[in-house]
């Protein structure tokens, strides 16, 4: 019974963690510009992230170690430090995007410029980590994250044509704007396979003290949780395709995205969008800050844990404190939050092999995994998707930069 509750909670958690600024921004743009035709990118990313999240849970359960910890041991300090630094940098950009998302939500609501909100928002995120425990962070994010289900409700209210919807899952060349289509496909994949998700999940399995009896629940949590998250992500695409595309509105700014729920919910639509954006970003910002502090601590062998008092894990607490402060500075600098988000997502796709491939090597290491090593099937799926996403991202990013002057 307790386990079923755990599974349910895990699923809900991943919805909260899954939908973040990246998914909202990329999906809204994709739906508004290309209708349903990028749904396949969410599907592709989701398949990969299900495998990765399941693996990271399994890895921690079986080996008792977190991923970062084990990667450093296997690859040595010199081999580890470059991918590690790269992933931290990307985490920082994504965290800045998340904070930016919250600030934009507040700007939409109050009309006060988003930069003004950077410091209060960063403080709020930090304060929750400083005073809260792991359960507060995880479950709180999860429960509030349910607001994002409104996108799913909107899909049913607006009633998309099922056949057209299904066609979106088959990759096809769009009529025009190929470079932008490619860039969005890459960004969607990057937003879906966020490395912090599985780093966080692996640390979570340790913090929650999962034992071997969790191997099967872990599989359900990963699959169902990530799938539900993906469905909401897809719902954003569909709603944008139905509400914005016919009007001829392209999402270049969050202001435009904020209109997408109005046709479905009328005057509540605007507030629901703002709430979804703020809450999803807030949850993701918490998880990102934690995931980054976890990885720094695990990389250098420090004591870590969200349940510890800041005083007894000073290096860990300082890590997220500094991290959030840096991200707040990026928001303060006034970079366009939408552009920042999209580029962070595309860069996530570029560095994906750096985090995912070493992890894949560990998953095949019988010293850690014993009989629970990866199947060929999961190796190949992850390998292919990750490499594909990275190669495409390398092509797509320069094209997008040229295209948007």
């Amino acid at each position, binding site marked *: 019974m307790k386990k079923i509750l755990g599974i349910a909670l895990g699923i809900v958690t991943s919805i909260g963690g899954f939908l973040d600024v990246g998914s909202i921004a990329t999906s809204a743009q994709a739906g508004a510009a290309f209708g349903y035709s990028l749904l396949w990118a969410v599907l592709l990313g989701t398949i990969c992230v299900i495998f990765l999240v399941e693996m990271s849970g399994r890895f921690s359960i079986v080996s008792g170690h977190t991923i970062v910890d084990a990667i450093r041991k296997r690859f040595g300090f010199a081999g580890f430090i470059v991918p590690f630094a790269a992933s931290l940098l990307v985490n920082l950009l994504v965290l800045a995007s998340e904070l930016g998302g919250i600030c934009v939500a507040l700007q939409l609501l109050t009309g006060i410029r988003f930069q003004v909100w950077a410091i209060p928002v960063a403080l709020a995120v930090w304060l929750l980590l*400083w005073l809260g425990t792991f359960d507060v962070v995880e479950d709180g994010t999860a429960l509030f994250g349910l607001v994002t289900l409104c996108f799913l409700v909107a899909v049913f209210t607006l009633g998309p044509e099922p056949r057209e919807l299904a066609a979106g899952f088959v990759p096809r060349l769009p009529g025009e704007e190929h470079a932008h289509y490619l860039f969005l496909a890459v960004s969607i994949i990057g937003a879906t396979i966020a490395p912090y998700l599985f780093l966080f999940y692996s640390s979570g399995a340790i913090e929650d003290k999962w034992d071997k009896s969790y191997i099967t629940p872990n599989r359900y949590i990963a699959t169902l949780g990530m799938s539900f998250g993906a469905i909401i992500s897809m719902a954003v695409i569909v709603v944008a395709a139905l509400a914005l595309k016919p009007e001829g509105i392209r999402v270049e700014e969050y202001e435009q995205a904020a209109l997408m729920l109005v046709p479905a919910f009328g005057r509540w639509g605007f507030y629901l969008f703002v709430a979804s954006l703020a809450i999803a970003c807030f949850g993701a910002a918490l998880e990102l800050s934690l995931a980054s502090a976890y990885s720094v601590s695990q990389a250098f062998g420090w004591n870590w844990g969200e349940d510890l008092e800041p005083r007894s894990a000073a*290096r860990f*607490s300082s890590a997220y404190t500094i991290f959030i402060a840096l991200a707040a500075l990026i928001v303060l600098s006034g970079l366009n939050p939408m552009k920042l988000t999209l580029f962070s997502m595309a860069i996530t796709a570029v560095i994906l092999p750096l985090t995912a491939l070493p992890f894949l090597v560990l998953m095949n290491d019988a010293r850690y995994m014993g009989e629970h090593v990866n199947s060929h099937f999961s190796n190949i799926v992850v390998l292919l998707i990750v490499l594909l996403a990275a190669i495409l991202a390398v092509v797509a990013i320069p094209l997008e930069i040229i295209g948007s002057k």
Partner: protein
Amino acid sequence: MKNIDLVRDVLDTQVLDREQRPLGKVDGIALELREGSPPRVAYLEVDGVTAWRRLGERYARWAAKLARHWQREGHPFRFTWRQVRDFGIDIEIDVDAERAAPFDLEHWLREKLIRRIPGGR
């Protein structure tokens, strides 16, 4: 386990103190090259500067300059195989982490940062 692969099994392994508190990683391994008999492991090091030296001397200098702010004494922290209480995926050694040199940064941050923030005590 009678035979051990030093690079795979020991280098960069998590070191725990006698109460299972994380102390750091095995950042360096010192070999004593002896005349006429096989080299032996003299001691293992847990020290940030040692780790950065593996990337190059320049990084070690930067790390050392930075570390001077919080380091007190006993750097680099070294232990011998004799102090190892348990060796598996982690290495557990017979010391008290709170009093060991690798915790200098922890103490320094508590002192300079955490204590000054409300709720940090």
